[in-house]
């Protein structure tokens, strides 16, 4: 019994450690002429403070859905906001300018697919998920920024 409890604790600790150690990668289309991004660029694009790539093309950010832990981690680390401030920000923008939060997608696969298809898109994925990816989908995107 004691052994089982100890194993459970070890397992939970290991799982928690592996999640918290996971970084976030911001991905862009491989044909996007932009080589790398700064954290402040990512913040501007996802808050629609800046809506154009240097080429003049409109930026198309894609989010994960509100239920995902990844989105919450992204809001905190990339946008320097609490979730409540983030929600207030979009509520305010919606009411005053009609701007809407970037489209939310329900899976990492969809994010990868959209960014791979659209030259002007930008999205984010868990670092580990991206590392373990193989095949055509991964070859259509590149990492613009790695967030701790």
């Amino acid at each position, binding site marked *: 019994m004691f052994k089982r409890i100890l194993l459970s604790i070890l397992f939970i600790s290991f799982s928690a450690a592996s999640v918290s150690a996971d970084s976030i990668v911001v991905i862009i289309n491989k044909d996007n002429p932009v080589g790398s991004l700064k954290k402040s660029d990512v913040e501007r694009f996802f808050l629609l403070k*800046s809506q154009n790539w240097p080429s*003049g093309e*409109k930026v198309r950010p894609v989010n994960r859905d509100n239920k995902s832990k990844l989105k919450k981690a992204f809001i905190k680390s990339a946008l320097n906001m609490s979730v*409540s401030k983030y929600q207030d920000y979009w509520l305010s923008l919606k*009411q005053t300018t*009609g701007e*809407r939060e970037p489209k939310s997608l329900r899976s990492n696969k*969809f994010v990868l697919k959209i960014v791979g298809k659209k030259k002007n898109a930008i999205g984010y994925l868990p670092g580990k998920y991206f590392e373990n990816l193989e095949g055509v989908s991964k070859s259509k995107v590149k990492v613009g920024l790695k967030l701790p």
Partner: protein
Amino acid sequence: MWLSRLVPIFLKNIAIISFFILLSTVSAFGGDDEINARLEALEEELLELQLKQSDKVNVTAFDSIRLDFGGFITQTFTSTFNGGSPSKASFDQTNLEFLVGADVTERDSVFVAVGFLRQSDLSSENTATNVRDRVFAKNANRVPGIIMWGKHRFSDLLDVTYGRFIDPWGIINIEHFPPVLLNLNQPQFLRNVNPGNLFGSNTFVPNFLNGVQAHGSKFFGDNQFQYYGYTSNFNGEGSSDFISGTRLSWTFPDNIATLGASYQNGVRDESTRDHYDAFGVDLLVNYKNFLLKSEYIQESISGTSDRESWYLQPSYRYNKWIFFYRYDYIDLDTDIENDSTEQTEHVFGLNYVYTPTIRLRAEYVVNDFELEKDSLGQERDYDNIQASITISF
């Protein structure tokens, strides 16, 4: 007739059945976690779509590439009292607004906010001789076209808005809408000094403008510079005289602080042809759960005395609770000290953000006049309690 109704239902059912047959077939061959995960995601999307789609109506945009529809409803309850005078109370404001936003092209968008108000203004029974006994005016229906603009976006550096838009003055006027305001009553300089018309012209600067506006922003490192320049009529109702103005702001890294300055001049009243100049500065500090807003405005109107106003509003958020205080001073005649136009408002407020779209507010307002007695020798000071709820969708 019955056949035309039956065919789409039949086709829809066939599509759903086919999907689930495909799902089970792939699962049977499965074992591949990736395929299963993807199918699960697809199934979820499909179910979500089914839930969102009404049985009878499909809503589609006519010609736009994106169409959003939303709005909010607000109900307030206000009670006013002072010393021995009897309290008056009323469910004084019901406000429903519909918002529609559409992207017509990648660069062109439109935004419309239409309000339906049921309102009973709080005012003195007789402003000249008796300010102590206040009354709620008879309820009136109002349907103001609050915002209706089109915008063309050239780049981050320049977008052009035309139509009726929010006056880009200071901080709170730009935020403007109840779902995001801590306090439904805006600072005194943005409210009508004499109530009677919610969106009227008796404010220091108009809340909304009818005209054309240029706006843009540029990043210098992690600092953001923004500008607005516009020309419009004062309140857009029958005026053939124009005003113009500008706003410049600088936001420091991580949005920790924004410093702004606004200037506006023109003719504010067609009949008297009063010319005015208004100048204002503002500061927004946003640090963790602490938020500070402050604005100062000074205005000169030809033929009358200068006027000025300022407020300071610190707030602190703890989970779903927001505590705030506002010190709000107004003086409509800076030439005379301690006159009837000098007033300080202290607002002690509390917000409960039940969900991001449902906000409850309670506030206690102390109205403190510099000239303490009216011409009948009665106390001018009074207090308000207001409770309100806003649900946005």
